[in-house]
């Protein structure tokens, strides 16, 4: 019974708990935190059940209210969304556990509404991923985005303007997506993803379809901050509260990559996206430019969080470029990188949140002699950093390996060069931090607020922040070690048949 209803429960638990959060907070403010964790725990369990069912019994079709697909809304869960569901609920749960102390420090009087928005944001992500209906996807996209704007706007000075700019660009992106839906509906009369996928091949010559495809791709590219459309991202994620950053930065761009994969390979057939149109070529070069520009801009930053934002932009380039290479190995790498990048970005922003909590600032100078002060946090940071660089036992190596292998097979050396360049830049970025962290330069770290004796005393982050960060670091190592079985049991089913 519960197992049958698990797909809808994933979303409903989050949505209903979001609505109930202000009530819970009204009863007792301290209850909000366990309440959110409880809700996300339920959601996580359901999504693990769903992933398990998908792995053993194949694709799940869940009909909301028992209505048959072309009329009713349908949830379709295959290996790709099942993986995304577990990633989203899992990382949301970790960030929720992590959130307590950081929120107390940054937004002491707004925790109740923060948690409400937090759950709505997660609901939006889950809905986008789980649904099999293109219009339903739009609605969830807007739920996720609106919650995101509001979360970001609560941040430090300048956050409202960053959120406002994000809102304007995000709305344009979502509207383009909606227009794409409209054009498809005009010629097919359907909104169901599976039905559309069946009708569309007969219409591939039509100009309307081309327009719809173009609108979809531009809208999604705006949402995922593909290079020339990335301008909203650095400000928004830097100035957001640490917890909001740790939730949104890993998930929003990756969910958008998921939508792109769906549109290109499920809604439209691979041969339309790859052979009929030069889309993959454009994506490939967009990805390459994104990698180069993201890496170069990251080098120029003095603020840790801002540097991470540009790394996120470069990583989006990896995935888009991997799809652009358009052979099985590269797309496998791109999908594996979606998974890895969620975990790695979560780790990076979790460390950034800890630094912000302890040092009260996020400049790179805050890392001065930090290894003595916060050995555990920095141990986790080392694992995450090595993974972003792409050092073997960590997961970052394997997705990069598949991407490089795929592009060598396709004879595309520029993309190989871009990947290697970005790895080298990441080495510089992180070893610069590690160097400042190991040696006590005696310069006044953290704006001179700490006296000298304080600098060498161990003062670790609270356990509620440290444990999730460690879980992320462990996940990075585990995904790396078990990447072979993850690929054969999950990802190979998600790679489109080319």
């Amino acid at each position, binding site marked *: 019974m519960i197992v049958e209803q698990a797909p809808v429960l994933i979303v409903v638990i989050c949505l209903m708990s979001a609505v109930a959060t202000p009530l819970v907070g009204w009863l007792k403010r301290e209850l909000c935190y366990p309440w959110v964790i409880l809700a996300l725990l339920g959601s996580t369990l359901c999504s693990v059940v769903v992933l398990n069912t998908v792995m053993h019994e194949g694709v799940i079709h869940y009909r909301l209210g028992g209505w048959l697909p072309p009329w009713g809304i349908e949830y379709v869960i295959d290996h790709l969304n099942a993986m995304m569901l577990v990633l989203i609920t899992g990382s949301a749960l970790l960030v929720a556990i992590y959130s307590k102390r950081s929120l107390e420090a940054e937004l002491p009087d707004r925790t109740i509404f923060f948690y409400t928005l937090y759950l709505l944001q997660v609901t939006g992500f889950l809905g986008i991923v789980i649904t099999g209906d293109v*219009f339903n996807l*739009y*609605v969830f996209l*807007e739920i996720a985005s*609106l919650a995101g*704007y*509001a979360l970001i*706007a609560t941040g430090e*000075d*300048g956050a*409202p*303007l960053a*959120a*406002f700019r994000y*809102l*304007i660009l995000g*709305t*344009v992106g979502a*509207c383009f997506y*909606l*227009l794409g839906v*409209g054009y498809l*509906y*005009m010629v097919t*009369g359907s*909104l169901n993803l599976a039905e559309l996928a069946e009708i569309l091949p007969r219409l591939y010559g039509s100009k309307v379809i081309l327009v719809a495809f173009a609108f979809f791709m531009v809208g999604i590219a705006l949402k995922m901050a593909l290079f020339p459309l990335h301008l909203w991202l650095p400000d928004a994620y830097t100035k957001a509260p640490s917890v909001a950053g740790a939730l949104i930065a890993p998930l929003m761009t990756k969910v958008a990559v998921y939508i792109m994969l769906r549109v290109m390979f499920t809604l439209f057939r691979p041969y339309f996206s790859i052979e009929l149109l030069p889309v993959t070529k454009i994506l490939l070069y967009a990805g390459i430019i994104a990698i180069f520009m993201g890496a170069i801009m990251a080098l120029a930053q003095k603020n840790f969080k801002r540097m991470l934002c540009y790394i996120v932009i470069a990583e989006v380039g990896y995935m888009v470029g991997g799809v652009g290479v358009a052979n099985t190995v590269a797309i496998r790498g791109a999908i594996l990188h979606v998974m890895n990048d969620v975990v790695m970005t979560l780790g990076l922003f979790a460390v950034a949140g800890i630094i912000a909590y302890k040092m009260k600032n996020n400049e790179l100078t805050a890392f001065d002699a930090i290894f003595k002060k916060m050995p555990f946090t920095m141990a986790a940071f080392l694992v995450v950093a090595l993974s972003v660089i792409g050092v073997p036992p960590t997961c970052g190596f394997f997705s990069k390996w598949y991407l490089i292998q795929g592009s060598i097979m396709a004879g595309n050396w520029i993309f190989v060069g871009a990947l290697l360049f970005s790895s080298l830049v990441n080495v510089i970025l992180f070893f610069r931090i590690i160097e400042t962290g190991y040696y006590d330069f005696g310069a006044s770290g953290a704006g001179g607020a700490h006296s000298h004796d304080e600098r060498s005393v161990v003062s670790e982050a609270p356990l509620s922040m440290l444990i999730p960060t460690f879980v992320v670091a462990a996940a990075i190592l585990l995904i790396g070690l078990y990447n072979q079985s993850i690929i054969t049991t999950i990802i190979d089913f998600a790679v489109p048949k080319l």
Partner: protein
Amino acid sequence: MDFIIAKYNYWIYITLMMIGFYAMIAKNNLIKKIIGMNIFQTAIILFFVSISYKRGGATLPILTDADAHGGHVIDVAQYLNPLPHVLMLTAIVVSIATLGVALAIAIMMYRKYHTLEEDEILKAIK
């Protein structure tokens, strides 16, 4: 000319959309940007409503002579397609929510910086 007149609603939708787009990009005042965003979204509503139109005198799908027991057969060609209208109800809700969030953020900024001009806010931040 026929090309324009026969499909005037689509031309209007494109024009409105570009007006909204221009306001979002070029205006300095945040409220004007928000208005531009709203025009942009409204243009899409016009587009969706336009696609439900059918040639040959189709009318609103209000079934006055339909039998409640299903004895009467409905000729689909007589009625406009109601689904795009229903979708737009949802889209209107979404656009109102977006408007609400945008105005709330604008108010936040006005309280903090006492202005709604983007360049002045930028100066106040740095």
